[in-house]
């Protein structure tokens, strides 16, 4: 009990610290500020894009890792989840040397299509997807492994094609895990800092997301940094509470998913 209480206060105290120092009198002005709103909008758009991309590519990847046996599968899994443990800055540097103007692929994008990725909003989305997708992949893969394959067999014997089975049986069965994974990925994308600043830079309006804005304000205007931090916390907290009750603990038909 005592240890658990310490753990709770460990998470609660920094939050209280922020609330205590918050300049409540000017809070509304800071939030209503053009720069803040721009950063907030950019953060929202980019993190949602990153989540969408994580789902579109992450679910097939999770399926491959869970269901298809091929040599070197554990190596592929490690590779695809490496960015979870990697310092994000390292990820950003790696992305830069792959997709940057002189990068492995970036040089051809530049030469053939006159297309440069770094320091664009697209780069923000890529950096966020890079660090966020593994969270979805790991969650969905675990759910796919737990799922009794015979439920899919049942669909197949009833005349369902592989795709029909995936859509009508597999996907609904792993829905709670998919939502949990998507929320985790989204939260990770929203908070992404290191890879973004390295790969996409810090340009207000195009690449300056909320976390970047918070960090930079800390130097120039700490009060503003506190307010922005609180806005981020409020959004994340609201989403976590809202989703937890609806999906994670589950209704009578959705199996429990441990976040």
């Amino acid at each position, binding site marked *: 009990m005592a240890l658990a209480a310490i753990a709770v206060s460990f998470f609660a105290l920094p939050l209280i610290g922020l609330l205590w120092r918050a300049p409540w009198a000017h809070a509304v002005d800071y939030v209503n500020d053009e720069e803040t709103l721009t950063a907030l909008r950019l953060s929202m758009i980019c993190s949602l894009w990153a989540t969408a991309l994580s789902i579109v590519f992450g679910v097939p990847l999770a399926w491959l890792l869970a269901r298809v046996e091929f040599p070197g599968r554990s190596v592929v899994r490690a590779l695809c989840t490496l960015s979870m443990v990697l310092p994000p800055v390292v990820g950003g540097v790696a992305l830069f040397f792959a997709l940057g103007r002189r990068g492995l692929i970036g040089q051809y994008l530049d030469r053939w299509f006159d297309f440069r990725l770094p320091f664009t909003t697209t780069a923000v989305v890529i950096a966020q997807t890079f660090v966020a997708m593994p969270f979805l992949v790991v969650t969905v893969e675990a759910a796919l492994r737990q799922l*009794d394959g*015979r*439920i899919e*067999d*049942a*669909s*197949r*014997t*009833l*005349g*369902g*094609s592989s795709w*029909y089975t995936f859509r*009508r*049986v597999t996907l*609904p*069965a792993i*829905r709670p895990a998919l939502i949990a994974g998507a929320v985790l990925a989204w939260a990770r994308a929203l908070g992404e800092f290191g890879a973004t600043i390295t790969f996409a830079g810090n340009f207000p309006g195009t690449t300056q997301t909320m976390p970047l804005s918070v960090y930079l304000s800390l130097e120039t205007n700490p009060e503003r940094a506190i307010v922005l931090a609180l806005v981020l916390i409020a959004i994340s907290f609201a989403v976590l509470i809202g989703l937890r009750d609806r999906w994670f603990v589950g209704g*009578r*038909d959705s199996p429990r998913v441990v976040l």
Partner: protein
Amino acid sequence: MSLSAQIEHRAGALDLQIEVEVQAGEVLALCGPNGAGKTTLLRCLAGLSPIDSGRISLNDVVLDEPATGTFLGPDKRKIGFVFQDYMLFRHLSVLENVAFGLRARGTRAAVARKVAKEWIDRVGLTEHTHHRPTWLSGGQAQRVALGRALATSPSMLLLDEPLAALDAGTRAVVRRDLRRHLDSFAGVAILVTHDPVDAYALAARVAILDDGRVVQTGTLADVTARPRSRYVADLVGVNLVPGEIADGVLTTAKGARVVVADAPTGPAFAVIRPHSIALVREVAVNSSVRNAWVGTISEIARLGDRARVGIVGELALTAEITIAALDALQLRPGEQISATVKATDIEVYPA
């Protein structure tokens, strides 16, 4: 209209080598111990596990023949599969579960729903049409699984231990209903079971599987009378006596009377285990044994240190005695003998 399969399939420790022929309208029961390959055989027939070599054809359509590179996936075969734990779709209602196969095969929603409703009526679950499977009891879930498998009008029905997950009371009722559905099913039906009672009630023919091979096949009466191994004798070598129960006595069609304990009135069958039968030259007058039938010894087969003695008469029975007892009694085929058994040693199942 029939199934013809020569199957070779390796999976882990199991090496399946099997030939099966089943006619349309026939029900074949597959019996055997765990790991004998019963479920794997069903999966091969369903296309869930491709075979390594051999040939499977249903109604002259080749389903799987590695030599010619022919393989039809499960969704391309006209089959119905009832899984051991039913594998109902928990996120769909009973109606959507039963309509699933038709929808998957491209039937319009309205038509599929209409056919599914008919099947739900037929399996007696009308009031559960819109419930989720999680609301259903084991017996109800089994019936949904059966309705779901039959709704697509398959040419072959595969049932993997359809009654194993049910408690004894439910089992008798569901077994009777399943019997009714199998009787009206025109295609090939194959049923995996551990229980000779199920095999007797549902199938005309049994195939005994052991370690990936068919070790014996025939009618259950044949297999019971002449088990080719100790193992088969233990598995299905029981006497099954059908009849009508009234006042604690089961009367067979031939008029033989079997005194039974705690028996419900009505059609039923008695299970008399060969080792519960005692053979005597003369029945003692003041014995607690309630059943004694006089018959003629038709054959004596030795299996290890035991002997199976076939008796014909008003009641055809197989008794199992030790070789020592056989020698002591000096039994010979053609001799008259009395078979006795205590009423409490007889199990009774409603038919």
